């Protein structure tokens, strides 16, 4: 039995990524259990806070994806409950989870990112939909990608190749979120770079995972159906470019004020430019997820990694009671 004490893995919730989250949570809990950690998988619902109050765990691993796990609210609630947890604070998660905000922060930190515009539905209603969309196409060109500003797993994401496809893509996107990020669609090698910060050396990038969606689009099905995507770890990149991509991920992690772990997605264009897309503060941990693949590539066992991060969170909680933990 580990000396970590009783820990919880939080998963599920009512976000659109509930199923993915449950899968992540089960995998993390299983990996911890194999190490002898006293771990329990817990859904996020109205029973959670009373439970934390009555039987406080040593630390919590947040495997909740989507709005509920990443918009900061759950993390704030854990802070208010005095329960230490793995990952970004609520305020940092809130910034990183909003792709438009994260892109702005990354841009200020010197990271190139595809030109984009973030638009509230209300702006279209007030200013006139057709005209505003025409301006978007004029300014950003085609093709475009339309994404919910806050969301994950490519849910609600559409690639728009003609101007006529843009309005329905906006409608589909607004069903997921009230803000749509319309971004110039950049082609190139798609990379996911996980960052781990579990020691004195500060955040360190794991080897980049190169994503080759066999259908051409790394959509929800391609992400979670084994066989639909080919992953290359490490990415088939020139070493200097791979190092530069790793720097982008670490820079983003620092600039967004994250801690413990994150995953940054970038595109490497044919002329060697690394374009920042987004950073995930609660990376997937499923059997087809990218952080566990990258960790395995350097011989890091998922259970050990999660246990070390929980240990770090527990120490953080003990050393700074009352502070965000």
């Amino acid at each position, binding site marked *: 039995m580990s000396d970590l004490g009783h820990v919880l893995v939080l998963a599920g919730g009512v976000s659109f990524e509930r199923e993915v989250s449950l899968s992540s949570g089960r995998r993390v809990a299983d990996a911890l259990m194999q190490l002898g950690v006293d771990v329990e998988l817990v859904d996020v619902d109205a029973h959670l806070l009373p439970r934390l109050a009555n039987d406080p765990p040593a630390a919590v691993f947040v495997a909740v994806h989507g709005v509920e796990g990443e918009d900061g609210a759950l993390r704030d609630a854990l802070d208010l409950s005095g329960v230490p947890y793995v990952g970004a604070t609520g305020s940092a998660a809130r910034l990183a989870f909003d792709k438009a905000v994260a892109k702005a922060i990354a841009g200020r930190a010197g990271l190139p990112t595809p030109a984009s515009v973030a638009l509230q539905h209300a702006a279209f209603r007030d200013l006139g*939909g057709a005209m505003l969309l025409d301006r978007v196409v004029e300014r950003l060109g085609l093709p475009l990608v339309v994404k919910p500003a806050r969301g994950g797993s490519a*849910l609600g994401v*559409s690639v728009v190749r003609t101007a006529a496809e843009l309005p329905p893509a906006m409608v589909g996107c607004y069903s997921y979120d009230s803000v749509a990020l319309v971004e110039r669609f950049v082609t190139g090698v798609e990379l996911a770079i996980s960052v781990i910060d579990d020691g004195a050396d500060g955040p360190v990038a794991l080897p980049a995972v190169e994503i080759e969606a066999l259908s051409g689009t790394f959509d*929800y*099905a391609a992400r979670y159906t084994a066989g639909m995507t080919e992953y290359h770890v490490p990415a088939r990149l020139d070493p200097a470019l791979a190092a530069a991509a790793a720097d982008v991920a670490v820079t983003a992690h620092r600039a967004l004020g994250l801690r413990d772990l994150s995953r940054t997605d970038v595109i490497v264009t044919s002329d060697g430019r690394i374009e920042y897309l987004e950073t995930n503060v609660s990376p997937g941990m499923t059997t087809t997820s990218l952080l566990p693949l990258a960790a395995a590539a350097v011989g890091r066992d998922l259970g050990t990694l999660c246990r070390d991060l929980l240990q770090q969170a527990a120490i953080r909680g003990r050393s700074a009671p009352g502070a965000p933990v």
Partner: protein
Amino acid sequence: MEMSGGSRLDPYVDRYAARTHGMTTSEIRALFAVANRPEIISMGGGSPFVSALPLDVIAEMTSKLIAEQGAKALQYMGGQGDERLRELICGVMALEGISASPDDVVVTVGSQQALDIVSRIFLDPGDVVIAEAPSYVGALGTFTQYQADVLHVTMDDAGLVPAALREAIARVAREGRHAKFLYTVPNYHNPAGITLVEERRDEILAICAEAGLLILEDNPYGLLGFDGPPLPALRSRVSEGVLYLGSFSKTFAAGVRVGWVLAPPGVKEKIVMASEATTLCPVALSQYVVAEFLAHHPWQEQVKVFRELYRVRRDACLEALTASFPAGSSWTRPAGGFYVWVTLPEGVDAKAMLPRAIQGRVAYVPGIGFYADGQGQRNLRLSYSLPEPERVREGVRRLAGVLADELDIVTTFGGRPAPEAAS
């Protein structure tokens, strides 16, 4: 662990049969995973309200059954199913005018297994199945897995349109293709909530007989009509040309997974052999439980209880739709069963709206899933069977709010049809 040449994370990916190619996870599956949470009023799944069963009676009955007949109930049995249950099933079918012999009945693991077996013994890749527009999603999934093509035939408020059926049969013949059967849910249709009127039943049978087209009559809701005695089944009018599928999922309990197929003797033999290859025999314990319930309990009174509570929920659903849904939308008025089929105002895509609905804490099934050819974008299916009447009303009210917001968005962008999503 460096993966030279990359990894697709599934070492068997190149070995699967061609029929698995469509078996991928999807955005819709992700959304339905949330819909089962208690915070959300789910009008999606067609789940029966099994809480209305006398659970204590069933518990006592099952306990006694195992104590007294456990050696049989927990053992293998013949692939055709328990003879006593098959006799009792003939009594159930008699309520819909069917005269049948227990020898021609095969018990299956829900009628879904019957759909699978019938598809397996009749369908070659590229065959055509003619089906109503829309059709039960579980049947479409089965036909697709056997690589058949589905040709939809229009329904109106009176059910399958005979002229459209004739035209579909002629079209298949013109194309030099082979239609194997007509799949139809004549009573309280899933998802459309429509019932094939009496006057059309003989005509549909005659059209199919003339064309040599077998009919697959799927009738899980036949005893759940709200307005009078059960309608005579298609199979009650003819002894040949119809394979009849029945189920205890809606009249007793879905969890026992007991259904059946009534087939002509030659077909029956093949069904039994195909079934044995899948399950050896249908679940013995479930068959004993159902047989006990039918033989020793007032099961028709229980069906009356179900009918009444579903009627109240249907009324709640229709009243709430009338009170809250906007102009430009319409819906069917089912005389039985579980479902209301809604047509949304022009420009609204029910699949695209589903995430908004789930955020609004209500769920439904988008219409597109009930077609094999991409129709149904403006449609959705509401199931009123599981939520209490007040929850049904609240669910429809919530959905009306969601629809108002979606209409606002659609209007802003000109209400053009949706493109293919990236996910």
